[in-house]
């Protein structure tokens, strides 16, 4: 592997790992936010039932539903690159394993190219979709939060998967040509 490839590989791994922990943080926030909302809803119920006035200032968090959806988008999309590096996606390797290394390399080059094409399209169209949403000023119902930054986020995350698949492509190409 040349130094350019090594640099690209190291850069991709670092970026993917950073995004992975951001995704993990989004999951923890989803849990805490939902639990806080349940707790505050319970407080309001207690206030109505028993008239406990000290609970008066407490209200459920407005827009929890929307925030959880946005955090879900961050959790799923930002974890994609690292999950690909870790081979965490479900794949059926039963047949491919029967072939010699070189044929395995050729098949992997083909499947990496297809995956690269898919994620390039997702990235490109997500960015265009985000620009559309930005122009039209579309916002969420309760918090009036704009959607577009999260759609940009998905586009960025898909671009990171492209990087992972590109480095895999070169590694498998070497395997295919017997290097």
């Amino acid at each position: 592997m040349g130094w350019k490839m090594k640099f690209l590989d190291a850069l991709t791994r670092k970026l993917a790992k950073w995004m992975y922990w951001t995704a993990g943080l989004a999951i923890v926030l989803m849990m805490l936010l939902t639990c806080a909302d349940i707790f505050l809803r319970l407080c309001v119920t207690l206030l109505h039932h028993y008239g406990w006035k000290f609970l008066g200032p407490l209200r459920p968090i407005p827009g929890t539903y929307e925030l959880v959806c946005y955090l879900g988008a961050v959790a799923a999309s930002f974890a994609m690159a690292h999950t690909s590096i870790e081979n965490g996606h479900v794949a059926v390797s039963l047949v491919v394993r029967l072939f010699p290394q070189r044929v395995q390399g050729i098949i992997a080059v083909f499947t990496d190219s297809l995956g690269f094409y898919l994620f390039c399209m997702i990235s490109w169209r997500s960015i265009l979709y985000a620009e559309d949403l930005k122009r039209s000023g579309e916002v969420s119902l309760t918090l009036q939060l704009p959607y577009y930054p999260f759609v940009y986020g998905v586009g960025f995350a898909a671009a990171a998967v492209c990087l992972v698949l590109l480095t895999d492509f070169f590694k498998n190409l070497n395997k295919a040509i017997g290097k």
Partner: protein
Amino acid sequence: MSLTTIAIIGLITLVVLLFSNMPVGFVMGVLGFLGFSYVVNMHAGLNLLARDVFEMFSSHGLTIIPLFVFMGQIAFHCGISRRLYDSAYVLIGNRRGGLAMATVAACAGFSAISGSTNATAATMATVTIPEMKRYNYDMSLATGTVAAAGSLGILIPPSVIFIVYGILTQQSIGKLFAAGILPGILLSILFLLTIYLRVLKNPDLAPPGPKTSLREKIRSFLGVFETLLIFGLVMGGIFFGIFTPTEAAAAGAFLTLSLAVVRRQISWQGFLKSLADTTRISCMVMVIVTGAVIFGHFMAVTRLPYNLAQWVSTLPLPNSAIMGIIILVYLLGGCFMDALAMIMLTIPIFYPVAVALGFDPIWFGVVIVLITEMGVITPPVGVNVYVVYGVIEDVPLETIFKGVFPMLLALLVCNLILLIFPQIALFLPSLMR
């Protein structure tokens, strides 16, 4: 080219690509996108891709997955599995086959807080097999029991498969969870019965474990307490309409984490490992579901599922025979494919057929989960068998598969009972608001 021909070409390409080691979600995504673009037009296909991906990733229904997976991972890292097994061990371990029976009971208990078969099998194999080895259990019985009972993870709620089935078919996740409880208990009893009969025929397979006092038996209930508390909060909350499934998942994860922190049963490293595994597993599930949705849109524009459903409903065959064929397809497919991937691939095609034939969608969900449970323990791709093999290492694969065989019969019997008495699955959902 007719739309049906395009759909069939799409399906054949899908099968070919699936065996190329390309991630299942990517295969479904790329073929769905290309097929949709071919049938409608490229511009519509590109728009569909961006919208489907964002809509699925930000779907409120799907946020339940990382939260339930997190709950299971925390439970795994804080040793709940060990305490469950210890309780079952003290209660029934002194009988012949008791340790294997305790394994089934502990797997059923752990399934009540974990939604994955692999996690349940891996956790329980680590805890139970060394103990059964110590008491000279036949390794085929020991490993086969863990591999098979681990499959309860997707039947007893919470279950990742029920969640994605509910999202794809627009069925209530709460009702699906409730529908899995009685069949889960029934299957656990059938597993216990299988062990009992095997040991009755050949007592050397499983010698009795150590005797325990009544005091120890009473104290052992403490080990089940936290599981009951978490399961009660989650399922009780959903069942009585206090929580939405997402809220129940968040509350369950928070309670599991809080109990682990208060009892000092989880380290910072354990927490980070739980979070990292949760992120990876959730992402894997979300990518498959999103791929299935894109592929489902391609299938929908070709109208293949609807035409197939219509054609099947006019066949001069009884509905039960058609259901039998569907079950056979799942059974064979499950031998070669991951349970989740298999369900994602087939739902867009078989679900409309099942509904057109008048089968209850909730019941159908339970049946296909039961069948895919067989898939996780049948060769050549019995994932749970490989998981147990990976954990134990010194037991040959053939031995584990041999031990799994009698349990497969229990699964078949459970399926037959459910086909004859669908009420077993539908009773609890019928009580829900």
